[in-house]
């Protein structure tokens, strides 16, 4: 340690604010840096790019199918990895902070526990959003290129067959355009982000009482799988398709606890080239917000009682 330090005017810390977006953003930014330096994002990008490249390799029957395959594979990869990253990235954060005692140094500063939770979740969501935006840009670029190549090949084939009438050209162009790059693609990516946000908030909730990271990951995966069958549970519970009381109770509990992840599956429509209506997307956005807020509130209730 050194002797002597230049004196300076005392930097006055600001007065304590009960809710500080600045503190939340500081925690979120540190979380993003932590996850990025854990190479999580790089792994997703590399893997998804490989998948996109594989999309080119599929043998196909017609131009629309080529584009649909590309979108199917890419969206499948995006969905899978966004959910995996949402769960894994969120699950490792709090146990690691607790294990390394970083949580002590953070919470011994004037940081309310709810801000810690919001900051951590926000960091994961920012990372997910960045990853999905990058992939969206890559996918859009690849799709646009592929769309032009496919259209060029189709027109060439029509000319070769002597079928290049204005009507046929317009029909093929419209068909390829519908399966090519459209706004519905971005809407699909947005829906994937909303679903991943809900799953991340659920993982955060579970990590508030879980004793190990593995437990959080496994339980969240199970809930995520169950969440895709939410409609089935609702039907059992609300429409009385089963008469066994325990089954009804179990279905009811799951229907309440599990998020309805099935509602975010608009990707099938998107890959067909159909964009969901704006009202549907607003509804999905609202529901995602309700789920995330609800899970955060429950997380706080658990975390505030947690003995550190």
């Amino acid at each position, binding site marked *: 340690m050194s*002797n002597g*330090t230049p004196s300076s005017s*005392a*930097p006055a810390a600001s007065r*304590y604010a009960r809710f500080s977006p600045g*503190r939340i953003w500081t925690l979120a930014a540190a979380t993003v840096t932590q996850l990025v330096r854990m190479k999580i994002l790089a792994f997703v990008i590399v893997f998804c790019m490989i998948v996109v490249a594989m999309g080119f390799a599929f043998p196909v029957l017609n131009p629309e199918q080529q584009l649909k395959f590309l979108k199917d594979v890419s969206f499948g990869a995006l969905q899978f990895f966004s959910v995996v990253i949402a769960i894994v990235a969120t699950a490792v954060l709090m146990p690691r902070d607790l294990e390394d005692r*970083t949580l002590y140094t953070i919470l011994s500063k004037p940081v309310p526990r709810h801000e810690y939770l919001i900051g951590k979740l926000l960091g994961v969501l920012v990372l997910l959003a960045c990853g999905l935006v990058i992939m969206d840009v890559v996918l859009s670029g690849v799709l646009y290129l592929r769309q032009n190549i496919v259209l060029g090949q189709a027109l060439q084939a029509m000319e070769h067959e002597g079928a290049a009438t204005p009507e046929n050209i317009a029909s093929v162009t419209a068909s390829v355009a519908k399966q090519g790059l459209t706004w519905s693609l971005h809407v699909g990516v947005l829906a994937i982000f909303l679903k991943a946000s809900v799953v991340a908030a659920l993982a955060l909730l579970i990590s508030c009482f879980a004793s190990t990271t593995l437990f959080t990951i496994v339980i969240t995966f199970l809930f995520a799988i169950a969440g895709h069958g939410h409609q089935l549970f609702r039907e059992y519970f609300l429409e009385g398709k089963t008469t066994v009381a325990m089954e009804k109770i179990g279905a009811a509990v799951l229907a309440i606890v599990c998020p309805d992840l099935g509602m975010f599956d608009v990707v099938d429509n998107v890959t067909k080239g159909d964009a969901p209506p704006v009202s549907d997307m607003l509804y999905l956005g609202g529901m995602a917000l309700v789920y995330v807020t609800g899970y955060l509130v429950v997380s706080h209730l658990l975390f505030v*009682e947690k003995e550190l």
Partner: protein
Amino acid sequence: MSNTDDSVSPANESSARSAGPRSAEAVTVENLTKVFKGQLGKKAFVAVRDLTFSVQAGEVYGLIGPNGSGKSTTMKVVLGLLAPTAGHTKIFGTDSARVESRQDVGFLPENPYFYKHLTGMETLLFYGRLCGLHGARLRDRAREMLHLTGLENASDRRVGGYSKGMLQRIGLAQALVHEPRLLVLDEPTAGVDPAGSRKIRDLIMEFKKRGITVLVTSHLLEQLQEVCDRIGIMDNGRMVREGRLDDLIAVENQTEIVLEDASPELLARIRDLVAADAGKASVKQMGNPRTTLERLFLKATEDKDQ
């Protein structure tokens, strides 16, 4: 080591910005009891039992005791990391349960680890921002703390590559970054070599000079003896002895005289004087005083460095 810098502002400067109520007591612990609930049929564990003590503003208070005596639990309750089962704790008059009580506290946990992916500088900026500091003033403050703790040359290195002693020092720097009036140090010298340990001890002395209150636990009792004004000894969750250090360690019926270059004749005359005394006085020990192993180590390594 002696630090003569002004980077750690005096308590009155710090207190001028504090929004909390004024209090002569930096830490107040009243009838604190902490019981950890038993899980899966296990019995509940009483970590702290009806503990009461206070730390006056500006003093260095040492909390000592064997492992499991409740020192760390007490510190965690004071910092609001644990909720008391009964009783309450206050920091400068504000209940520890209130988040704003932590505005004036810096905490160094035992064996601290920080975000491995951040550099030393980034670590201090992160903790400074959490305390409401920002901009150029935060950067200046972070640089001052790196200088104070001797980590300037490691400021761009990731904390994951820091040695044990460096981790303790970056821990001290983050605890001080927002100029707290109270420092809570849990085993600040654990796992640190004697030279690093001595440096941390000297820093505590410097904080004391500047009016910063320090609540510290350590197993190195000799070091605590050198820096603490008052000591509390805990055992089995209870305070078994507490008071001013000088009062606690003084042997009241003995007197120590240390002579330099005394001849054997002089020593013999002193013995004779004592023997001739009509009272009960007797010479208990006479010989060369011993240095400590720590001082010997430090002197040997310093000589080698030179």
